[in-house]
Each structure stands twice: as C-alpha cells, then as structure tokens.
C-alpha cells in the first residue's frame, strides 16, 4: 500500500516534464471533462526580509483542469505552464490514484516521476557541492 498523500502526488504531477508524463501514462483512458483546461496566472508572493509581511512578486502561468473517469472518480490538476494536454494527463492520474488501482498507478507513473525528480535534484546538488568554497581571511602585518 502506498503512503503518498494526494497533496504530494499532485505536486509530483505538477512538477513533472510533460513529455515524460505522457510517455508513462500511454493511452489516455476514457474520461469526461468537468472543467475545460484553462490557462491562467497565479500571483506568486514573497515575504519582505524572507520572513516578514507578504508582497506580490509576479505571476506565473498555470493550467488547471477537472475531469471524471468512467468509474466516477474525479481528478483535479493545477500544473505550471500552458500545456493543456499535460493538465488533462495530470488530472487523469490524480483520479486514478484515488481508486482501486492506486498501487499500480503509483508504481507505473508516480514513482518513476519521483525518481526523475530525485535524480535531477541530486545532479544539481552535486554540481553545487563542487563549487563550495572555504574563504580564509589573510592576516596583515604578521612576519
């Protein structure tokens, strides 16, 4: 049994590369669209001084979509960017992850996406680690 929460799998789907998700999902199962894929903007906020009062930093493009599978399960997607097909696929997987096949879907789609993400993050972290510096202050006026 998988222990991943819906919040987490929706995050993984949103962050996934559209081509990769399309490949892992394969043929899209039958579904009916409840809310057409819609491209919009989300205002990203920051905090003054990193921890203080919020301010508006700027917007990002987001596509959202809601659909229903034949067995009645409803899936939502909010994904970065303007790829409507990607939003539909993410919503399909979100619906499937709530159904009886969740373990299978997790193993076939969500788990490989998580692995991709970890590999990508580790590659960046290891390049960053190679540029870690130690600064020494030079002592002046000492023989």
């Amino acid at each position: 049994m998988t222990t991943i929460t819906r919040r987490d799998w929706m995050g993984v789907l949103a962050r996934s590369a559209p081509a990769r998700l399309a490949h892992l999902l394969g043929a899209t199962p039958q579904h009916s669209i409840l809310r057409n894929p819609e491209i919009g903007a989300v205002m990203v906020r920051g905090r003054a001084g990193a921890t203080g009062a919020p301010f508006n930093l700027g917007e990002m493009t987001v596509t959202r979509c809601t659909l229903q599978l034949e067995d009645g399960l409803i899936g939502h997607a909010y994904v970065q960017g303007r790829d409507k097909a990607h939003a539909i696929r993410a919503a399909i997987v979100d619906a499937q992850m709530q159904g009886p096949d969740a373990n299978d879907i997790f193993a076939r789609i969500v788990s490989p996406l998580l692995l991709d993400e970890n590999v990508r993050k580790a590659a960046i972290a290891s390049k960053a680690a190679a540029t870690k510096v130690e600064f020494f202050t030079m002592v002046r006026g000492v023989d």
Partner: protein
Amino acid sequence: MYVAVKGGERAIENAHAWLAKERRGDPDVPELSTAQIREQMALAVNRVMAEGSLYDPDLAALAIKQARGDLIEAIFLIRAYRTTLPRLMASTPVDTAVMAVTRRISATFKDAPGGQILGPTFDYTHRLLDFALLAEGEVPPAPTALTGPAQDMPHILSFLDRDGLIERAAPSDEIPPDLTRAPLELPADRALRLQALTRGDEGFVLGLAYSTQRGYGRNHAFVGELRIGTCPVEVDIPELGFAVEIGEIELTECETVNQFTGSKSQPPQFTRGYGLTFGQTERKAISMALVDRALRWRELGEDFTGAPAQDEEFVLSHCDNIQATGFLEHIKLPHYVDFQAELELIRSVRAAAFASREAAE
C-alpha cells in the same frame, strides 16, 4: 493634446513585412529556435520574466525572438500577454529557506552554516573574450562532488536575528496591495514598493542603488546573503480544501545588512534591505535590496537628504520601463496638429516682437 492621424496602412504593412525579414536575418545562417534562446540565452530570458512580471521561460524566449533581442520590447510583449490571462489565485508566500540552492554566498560571514556555494557565476572570471566560443563544440560536463546528507540552508541573517543584533522581519498574513490591480497610491507601503522594484527596470534600479553607495542616501550595505535556486510554489485549492504545489520557479534572493539605528527606547541594531527576483538575476536582486533599504528612511527614523533613491514618488513613478518607454517613444509618433499650433504661436509671437522693434525704431 494628441490628435490622431489616419492613413499609411500600406507603408505600415510593408514596414512590418520588412521587420519580419530583418528578424530572420541572413537565411544562410540557421534560424534560432525559442528552445535555443531559452537554454542558451537564459539570463536574458530571466530578465524578461522578472521585468515582464510573468514566470514562463518559453514565452519569454518567444518574446525575445519576436523582439529581435530588444529586451524592453520583449518585456512589453510579456506584459501585454499577461493582461490576457485570468488570475486564478495567489500563492502562499514562497519559503526561500527551503530553496534548492545553486548559489549561496555571504559577504559578511565566511563560515556560514551550510557553506558558501559559488554556483555557475561570472565572478572571478577575467572578463576576457573566449574565442573558443566562436567555434561550435562540446562543453565538458561540470565537475561534481559528493553532497553527503541534505543540509539545511538557514538564512544567514537569522543568526544575527537570534542575538537581537538585527531588526526582526516579523511574519504577518496581511493581503498585500497589488500594483497590477489598483493604481499606485502614495505614500506606498513596503509591500507595494517591493512589487514595483522587483518588476522595475534593472538599469534604473542599478543606477539608484549605485547612487546610494556613492553617498546619495548612503546606508552602507553588506550582502549578508545572496542565494539562487528553485523554490516550490504552493496554492490553496478551494475545491480540495488543502494546498498543493503547482510547480517550481527559480529565484534570486538578496538580504543586506545595513547600518544600524537606535533610539532612547531601542538599543542599536543592524537594519535590513531585501531583494527577491524571478530567475537568476543577481545584479537586480542586490540593487533592489539597496533601494528598498534607502526607501525605508521614514520608518527607521532617518533623515531625508533629498537623495533620489530615498524619494518614493520619484523611484516608484519612474522604475517601470514599460511605462517609461511608452511615454518616451510616443513622442516620435505623428504630432502634426500639436506642432502646427506651436508653429502658429511662434509665428505670431515673432511678428509681435518684430512689430514692436520697428515701432521703437
């Protein structure tokens, strides 16, 4: 008063067709794809996203291609596009403490917990043209090192904060004002100033920041921390009743430590300036932090010295390059009726002047 003109459709059409041809350049040279711009002109893409105020690298690359590399024109295209998008919601404030950093340096503490990471920087290069780039070739992979267990990257200023040596940036959940929804009203609060600065023109904000360093509203800034990396963006989804991550964005954050203030009731403390920008845009983030700090003079009980960087109305009214270029460039468009009135005026004034001179003789 501006009076519209008609006509010239044919010439305008032909001018735009020629523009398209010039955009393509010499057809013997392979055409640039937007993916190439996104990947290989990434810092231009980042600037267009930051000042266009819309995070979408593909669209920023398209805008740069369409604008023939004129970044302000590209920013204009992005600003125009963003007005067509429905605003779905606002994110919860990004938590830069969990940033997956590619760069993180401090000019104030050499032994910062978590370490100093240079990342892919131009710093310490010799600024000599690299003629090897004239020839196409493979780039060797970047060196890597073992990372060990994931380390926390606490904000460096939090150590000063813990000892009470720096003013606190106390959290709040206030809904910030939004420049894109309501006209700018002065005096502006800090949230509005930060929004204006983060989308402001890099050159203008840099110039103002430099002026504070040269003594026009000096506040003696140290870069306490500069970090670049990706942060998740999270929104509350009303139909689900919980928050989900909708993606990741690259951000640059600069926190400055500035000269202290104190009063009878408060012991002296360092003060803060803050910069946060889309993408890898560190010149802009540092500039933003210096100007943010200069604009805080009233709140910190400092003197207004008349310096431009302290003048909120001056800074906020002029930092937007789309407003600026829109007003500036409109003066090249036909003003025939305007100018006709000026011509008639000067002719009548001159005639009167000649007449009075003749009468005197």
